[in-house]
């Protein structure tokens, strides 16, 4: 299947995250009359003109593309809310503001297909871009603190952000762990007969470090 991520890469591909985000619900105002849809993922509708209803984003986008509804952007996608978030993000060097788990994907989906339904779309778009930049910069500087003594860290990240840093963080911690634990290196990389000379080797090396 085309959308499936490479098993060796990151756990989820960007397309798969978008797929997951498309299941989040959003409010639409239909302009057509349609009976209730009994789908595998749930029942939606009935759809009546001018009566707002909740549907998954994929359904909203499908209707929108055919000009059958207007999408009501979620509360957090307003200039006012996003300005607050951006300011808070800039003020604090380490904490992350609460945004929906899929904010990157959702905003992208709506910018692609429902531009005319978002008030001040240019402003909203540039605010979200700025927020994304500020947050990724913070993540980058935060990762520099990663060390051999990092056992756990607490973050408040979105799906896309986590997905980007996951391979690096887990790989990095793994390497720190290995390097900090000589037995592990021996076990995994040396065959039994080579094991004996190893401890003798390690003595001088350690002195060099001091």
């Amino acid at each position, binding site marked *: 299947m085309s959308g499936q991520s490479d098993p060796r890469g990151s756990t989820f591909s960007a397309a798969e995250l978008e797929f997951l985000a498309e299941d989040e619900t959003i409010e639409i105002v239909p302009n057509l009359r349609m009976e209730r849809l009994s789908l*595998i993922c749930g029942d939606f509708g009935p759809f009546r003109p001018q009566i707002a209803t909740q549907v998954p984003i994929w359904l909203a986008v499908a209707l929108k593309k055919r000009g059958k509804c207007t999408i009501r952007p979620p509360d957090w996608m307003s200039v006012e809310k996003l300005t607050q978030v951006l300011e808070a993000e800039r003020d604090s060097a380490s904490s992350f503001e609460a945004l929906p788990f899929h904010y990157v994907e959702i905003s992208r989906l709506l910018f692609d297909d429902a531009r005319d339904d978002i008030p001040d779309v240019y402003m909203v778009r540039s605010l979200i871009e700025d927020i994304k930049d500020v947050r990724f910069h913070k993540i980058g500087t935060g990762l520099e603190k990663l060390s051999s003594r990092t056992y756990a860290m607490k973050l408040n990240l979105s799906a896309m952000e986590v997905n980007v840093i996951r391979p690096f963080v887990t790989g990095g911690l793994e390497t720190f762990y290995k390097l900090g634990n000589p037995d592990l290196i021996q076990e995994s990389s040396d065959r039994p007969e080579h094991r004996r000379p190893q401890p003798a080797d390690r003595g001088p090396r350690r002195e060099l470090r001091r």
Partner: protein
Amino acid sequence: MESGSDKGTGGSSAMDDYETLISTTDADLLKRSWRNEKASPEILQFESSLVQRSREQIQLMEETVEEFMNNGEDPLTVSLYQMDIDRTMFLLRSYLRIRLQKIEKFMFHIQKTAELWTRLSRQEQKFAKRSIEDTKQHLDESVLSKLPDRYKSHLKQSVISEEDDMVMEPKLDAFVICRSRKFLGGLPVDDRKSARHVRGGYLCTSLQVDKTTS
């Protein structure tokens, strides 16, 4: 994001099943199984009844769509139903594919571990058996039969190896990122051993994505 300031442990696969509480439909369950299977290094129990139900649902829906088309139903409605079917099909296919990839990768390990072997469906066992035979034959014919006697096994480096050291095993002892369903206070992780070996060996927190419940 301050390293070490807040530490926490989370349950296994907490990142993946944060929706458990609200998921009731099979579509949600399938999504969850797909996510779990994708994120876990080893093969998980095959969700036979869930897969069965999903297949029946897809079939039922396809029949419904056909009926709609025959009855001249609004093409828009038909296409929406079709999209829903496609989404479910994608999940189901992807779920089965991930499992096959894992089986291909770890087939010898799965074969010699009874617990893992029973996690496969009957068809998967058949697939595993055949790929094991083929791989073995291929290794024998291409390389192993030409080596000296003591290096002929496809499981061991040489006859003096005590363990099957040429069998690839999934890495169950790895760092993970997980998402907590509710706010966790400061949970102490005292030393690395305990941080890495909670809950059956795999998926233990070393890094936590914390999220208060919405």
